[in-house]
């Protein structure tokens, strides 16, 4: 089993005719992702990697039965594209671009909640279910099917953690990129619940970083979970008031310090890890 997407997902790409869209469509297909088509307004009737292109998401859904979509468009077009997908009946949406205006994501989130759609991102590397589906821009080199789920606000941390799990023999069920933007489509707790309900996932590694409140929001869920949660937080030594690469990675006033996040997660029952090598050690101790 997996969460969010697997080999049966019918995936479409919004912005499939663009540079990034077509490049990653080819990569995702080569991995074995079940891509059924895509959309670009005004380019309906074309093909990319043999897959049909439609003018609208609704047409793509109607003809191909797409139920999952990945957005590869510039940030300023994301609000409209996401709402289009949500209203067209997409059930799971991945927002790859970064630096989406915060107010736009508030609108997208509201629309998604109203219609029961899961959105992840912006600024996510995507979702990887090893051996089944690669939805986004993750390099398959780090991943192997296994029994630990991961959630991270960062692409590079996802690769380091997956590589660590792969080489220590645990492997991964699904790796979820939550995204690096300040306001995200989904939160840690929402994804943790999905892993808790997944039989194959025996533990979850969640990797947060400075900025925002999503790690703190997860504490109540973690305290109720049976599946053990390992927690890493980046930015213990980060300076306040300075954005660090990700739009969302900034300590603002008293909000968003890494130490407070780590303390809150540990108090809720998560197992803190300082470095990647701590992960297999902790998993072994927990008998995963």
């Amino acid at each position, binding site marked *: 089993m997996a969460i969010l997407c697997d080999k049966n997902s019918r995936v479409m790409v919004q912005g499939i005719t663009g540079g990034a869209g077509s490049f990653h469509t080819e990569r995702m297909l080569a991995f074995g992702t079940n891509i059924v088509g895509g959309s670009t307004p005004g380019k309906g009737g074309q093909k990319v990697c043999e897959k049909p292109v439609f003018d609208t998401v609704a047409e793509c859904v109607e003809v191909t039965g797409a139920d999952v979509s990945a957005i590869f468009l510039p940030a300023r077009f994301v609000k409209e594209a996401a709402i289009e997908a949500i209203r067209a009946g997409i059930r799971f949406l991945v927002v790859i671009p970064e630096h989406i205006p915060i107010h736009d994501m508030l609108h997208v989130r509201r629309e998604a909640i109203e219609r029961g759609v899961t959105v992840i991102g912006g600024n996510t590397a995507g979702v990887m279910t090893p051996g089944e589906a690669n939805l986004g821009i*993750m390099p398959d*080199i780090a991943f192997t099917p296994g029994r630990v789920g991961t959630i991270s606000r960062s692409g*590079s941390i996802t690769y380091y953690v997956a590589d660590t799990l792969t080489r220590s023999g645990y492997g991964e069920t699904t790796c979820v990129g939550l995204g690096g933007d300040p306001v995200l489509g989904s939160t840690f707790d929402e994804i943790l619940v999905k892993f808790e309900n997944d039989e194959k996932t025996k533990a979850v590694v969640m990797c947060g970083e400075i900025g925002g*409140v999503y790690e703190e929001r997860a504490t109540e869920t973690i305290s109720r979970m049976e599946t053990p949660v390992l927690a890493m937080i980046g930015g213990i030594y980060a300076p*306040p008031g300075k954005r660090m690469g990700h739009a969302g990675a900034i300590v603002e006033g008293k909000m968003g310090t890494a130490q407070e996040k780590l303390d809150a997660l540990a108090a809720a029952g998560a197992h803190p890890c300082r470095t990647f090598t701590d992960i297999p050690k902790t998993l072994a101790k927990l008998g995963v």
Partner: protein
Amino acid sequence: MRLYEFEGKELFARCKIPVLVRRVAKSPDEVYAAVSEMDIPVVLKSQVLIGGRGKAGGIKTAEGANEARTAANQLFKLKIRGYPVASVLIEPRLDITREYYVGVTIDRANYKLVVIASGEGGVDIEETAEKSPEKIVRKSLGIEQDLYPFEALAIAKKIGVPSDLLKQAAGIIVNLYDLFRKYDAKLVEINPLVVTADDKLVAADARVSIDDDALFRHPELAEMGVEKRHEEGEMTPREQQATEWGIPYLDLDGDIGMFPGGAGFGIMGNDFIHYYKGRPANFMDSGGGPSPERIAKMLVLLDENPNVKAIFGARFGGISRCDDFARGVIMFLKDHGLSKPMVMRMTGNNWQEGVRLFDEAKKTNPELFEKIEAHGIETPIEEISKRVVALAAQEGGN
């Protein structure tokens, strides 16, 4: 990103939030000229992107132009929590009878906008929230919702605004909420909103923070001279250089130059250095599939930083390929040269090609590689971190 008070007040004025007559001066002489024209007792307020200027002596009053110049001489020499004062806002001095707090921000955990108000203005709202939460009024709204005057009036009433000023206060709160949505703000605060001796409400301070990522749709801000900047404090010259080159970069106070891949590992890698008792000289995000030219520029930033004693390089080739990374490093070695020891690790997509490019370049120019220790996937990143800390110590770092 945070706006200076004078920029925030300009937005207030455009959104019909009452502010005083204002002048901005960049030198004591400009202050003198402005106050001579105004010809009234004034307040001089240092313009910095950080709180606590009052306590740091960054606000002064003056009766006339001569006194104002003397005060300005002191202000322009001042450093407020480390940041120099480049401009001063001049306003008429006010007689104040009462201070309130009004603000709008985003409740990120619940995806709502929240209007916050308090009968205690002029103090840090976070302090009030901790010490006496009962003095704070909050109202949550969806991003799509308008704030109606009757709702704003109820907020004003709860914080103790007297009857004769209620309608005016409600108007200010509605206008502040509208400004928040119109300008893609993350935070707007009037702290304090004051009642003057002649019974008028005026925004005595302005804290406005705008979403950097929405600047593209607010050309009017660029016209006002607002450009990308930190949330807190001004940029260093190296940070400005990096910003020009499109590289997310921060100066820190250590001696290890960090060249660590994506933003996420950029942040965590700096922690690793601390865990092994080293200190990073910078933060850098070199992710997102950088070109060889960009990689070379990143190394220039580190090599030319006199504080840097040793360099930490890491690449997990995801979307960015290791061969491009290797090309960038080689380009830097040939065009610029490396004057400091560097430990690096390269793994991920196309790592074999990256190693091959290094070997080839090394054969023709072995001298370029003398200061580089290159590792692959067999060496954990934790070991690389320890190694660079040891190298920096050898080079006489702290």
